[in-house]
């Protein structure tokens, strides 16, 4: 037997390769079992890209369930709060073409909103607390309720259950910390005292420097 193998180079090569693949296969198989990751990492990664507004507009009771649904093959364009940016990021992650937002589930809005309870009108029914997915509403039965603006995701879910309709969704104010420069619009016409973005001070003295050179 050994002799036959030794004398036949093709056979020995085949045997060697076969043996190697069997050995590595076994190692890989073992590793797959031993180092199995708990939970579905893809769900986590998709969830990390979703805006966590938890509004349920996608048709799921929160962002994580939608992430799970995407893993199970659902469309990636159902999250209105995330808008196109989220769809693109998801498409990037899943390596699929990015569709545009399915407006059946809602429209994307640039303006971030936050719930505000007109406190004098609140009757303390606690309905809104039950609706809020992030526990952003404080209050107790028969007590006035209030929204913790920092924790409110602007999901809109508390507005409808309020029996006295005292919850408003107000746009988030940009304060100095939240303010940022915007990208220049191409070939904009600068206007004095109107928009800060029209600023382009630089290159101002070039004419002068040319003059100087000429002089």
């Amino acid at each position, binding site marked *: 037997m050994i002799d036959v193998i030794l004398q036949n180079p093709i056979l020995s090569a085949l045997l060697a390769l076969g043996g190697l693949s069997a050995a590595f296969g076994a190692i890989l198989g073992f590793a797959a079992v031993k180092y199995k990751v708990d939970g579905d990492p893809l769900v986590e990664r998709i969830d990390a890209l979703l805006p966590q507004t*938890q509004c349920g507009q996608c048709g799921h009771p929160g*962002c994580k369930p939608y992430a799970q649904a995407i893993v199970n093959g659902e469309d990636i364009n159902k999250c209105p709060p995330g808008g196109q940016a989220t769809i693109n990021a998801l498409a990037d992650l899943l390596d699929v073409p990015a569709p545009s937002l399915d407006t059946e589930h809602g429209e994307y809005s640039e303006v971030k909103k936050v719930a505000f309870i007109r406190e004098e009108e609140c009757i303390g029914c606690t309905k809104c607390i039950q609706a809020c997915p992030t526990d952003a509403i404080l209050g107790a039965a028969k007590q006035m309720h209030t929204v913790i603006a920092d924790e409110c995701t602007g999901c809109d879910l508390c507005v409808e259950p309020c029996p006295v309709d005292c919850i408003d969704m107000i746009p988030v104010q940009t304060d*100095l910390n939240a*303010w940022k420069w915007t990208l*220049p619009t191409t070939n904009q016409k600068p206007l004095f005292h109107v928009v*800060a973005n029209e600023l382009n*001070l630089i290159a101002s*003295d070039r004419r002068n420097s040319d003059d*100087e050179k000429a002089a």
Partner: protein
Amino acid sequence: MTSLTRVWDIPGGIHPPENKNQSLQLPLGEIPLPPLLVIPLNQHMGTPAQPVVQVGDSVLAGQLIGAADGTFSANTHASTSGTVIAIEDRAIPHPSGIAAQSIVIQPDGLHAWIEKEECADFRALDRLELLDKIRAAGVAGLGGAGFPTAVKLAPKSTQVIDTLILNGAECEPYITADDMLMQVRANELIAGTLLLSHILHHPEKLLIGVEDNKPKAIAALKMAIAAAAVTDPEAKKIQVVSFPTKYPSGGAKQIIQILTGRETPSGHHSADIGVICVNVATAVAAWRAVRYGEPMISRVTTIVGEALQTQRNIDVLFGTPISYVLEQHGFDANRASRVVMGGPMMGFTLLDLDAPVIKTTNCILAPGKQELPPPAPAQACIRCGLCAEVCPVSLLPQQLFWYAQAEDFDRLETHNLFDCIECGACSYVCPSSIPLVQYYRAAKGSIRQQEIEKEKADRSRQRFEFRQARIAKEEAEKEAKRLLRQKAAEEAKKKLAEKTIATSEPLEALATTTDIVAAAVAKASAVQISADEQKIKLERMVNAAKSTLEFAQKPLVPNKTNPVISEEQLVKQQVRVKQAALKLAEAEKKLADFIATQPELAAPEPLPTATTPAVATTTAIDDPIAAAIARAQAKLAISPADRIRSNIESLHSRLAKAEERVAEAKADGSINVAALQQGVDKLREKIAETEAQLTEPGANEPVAVKAEKTAAQIAIEKARQKATAMANKSDGQKRAEQIQALQLRLQKARERLAQAEAENDPNIEAFRLGVTRLEEKLNEIA
């Protein structure tokens, strides 16, 4: 003392026209007190100060009006004496044009100071005390960023500071504020340098870096050093280093590189490489804070531009509206292309001229339309690479531009976007006039915003998941409770059902149970296949059937005395009797068949006569199993009546309570009346139902012994066991045992009967019957 010190060069850089002469023609000026001072609470980098005065308070110059909020913040002081007339959002000099909380002071024109705490010798004070004084005076970086100075002067203990640099480069065109300051306050600057050196544990090198386009300032500093050296030998250590003018050599990281050759690594502070760099004006402010106890309330600012009649440097109080400053310098709005705070490279257009001068206002530039024309429209990038050549931090501005346009934040970060000092050199040289810096600022803002949003999203996720978990837990608890209740209810129902069956159809149930037991016994004995055994088995079956029949007949006897029993029930019972008789006939036939097929079993034992059901009683009782079961069933049949009665009682009491409550609710007109009434109705229904149960046949039969179903089951079980055991015993043994047991039972029965007779129990009839039956049975066996 000399400028022979070696200087290094920085990469890139540009040489824009300096335009510094305009503002240096006149000496340092001052302007009259404005009619109103608007002092924003966030003139520095970090958290805004918190107001500590109220509207209507009168304040003195240098009085604290805004207290620092945390370490990374700075105190704010009243710039003059007067009255606080408002604390509200006012326009501040910020590229966004957003208003921010400010304290508005109406000056009284006296400019009366608070009491100042002077300090002749700072060396007598502890370092921490000195830092406290500087912090209390609200000193923040006057170079442009407004970094709280006390924070800067307290490096971590791991950072060994060997070089202190006083930044007097002032590289941006037009601005001459530091130049002017160095000329007129050179002595104070040298004293301030020594103070900072003391606070920083006397670093090896004390350097004042000045661009070589400020010869007057350099000369003044050198004179001041010579003068100071007379009294303080440390002053000799101070070197004034002049280096070639180049924009942007005044950036902190740039001047450090120029003076020490050390590069600050990306993402680090200069203190990490042993250098602290402080603006010259800041050093003077720190000195004044310590020496004279004077909080920072004014600064030297360059007022320049072709749209102004007078261009000069002024020492101006913080809070002075820029419109007022401009007015004092002959501002012609028609000639101005815009008003800029800061220089032409790094400044920003002011959206509201009523915004005040603040700590970081180093220049107010009001250029003419020719001087600073609107930028040419941006063209496409032609990839000339000029921007990369001039970048002082050796970034790749072009790449950054592409990525910023594409909002590719990951790549921007890997290309070190955050190292960009926004100097504008790249935009300055860009032949396509692309506003590069604005792209970078926007991208930086977006990245920061994204980070904030990410953090918020993470928090929302956490809160959401926590809530889900909490709800799930609550649900699980509820579910568990519900299941428990359900189980209890089911059990109760089962009990009730069994009892109902037992009570309403005691005979039928008994018959079937007996059959089951018989079957079990048959099975148990089936192992022995001998014909003998089989015959015995069959005989037992016959016996069982007989006992069934007997029991089926039994209720008829007491019922005769009970007139409540309806005609229908009697019919039913008769039917049952018939059924039992049929079964008996069947069993007998089987036995006969068996004997017929087994001829070897000679001389068959005389079959127990079953001529008429009425006479069959004794034989039936013969079977111990059937008897035990009968007892158990009887017990089952007995208990429900009691139970139902007690049920009814409790229901009645509940009803009474509920009715009370309804009355109460009605009395005080509660909204719950309807609900309560409903509860009462339901209770009534229940009582009616239970009472109906009680009147049902069987349940009505008088009972003395209360038994539980489980007890009955145990009895049945025992009987079964006995039966299997019996099946294996010899006839003689069996009989002896039977007789013994019967005698025992008879005795007990008699006792019970006697008791019943004594108490005139209504069950006396039943007891008597039991005793007679037992006696008969015993006679039969014996």
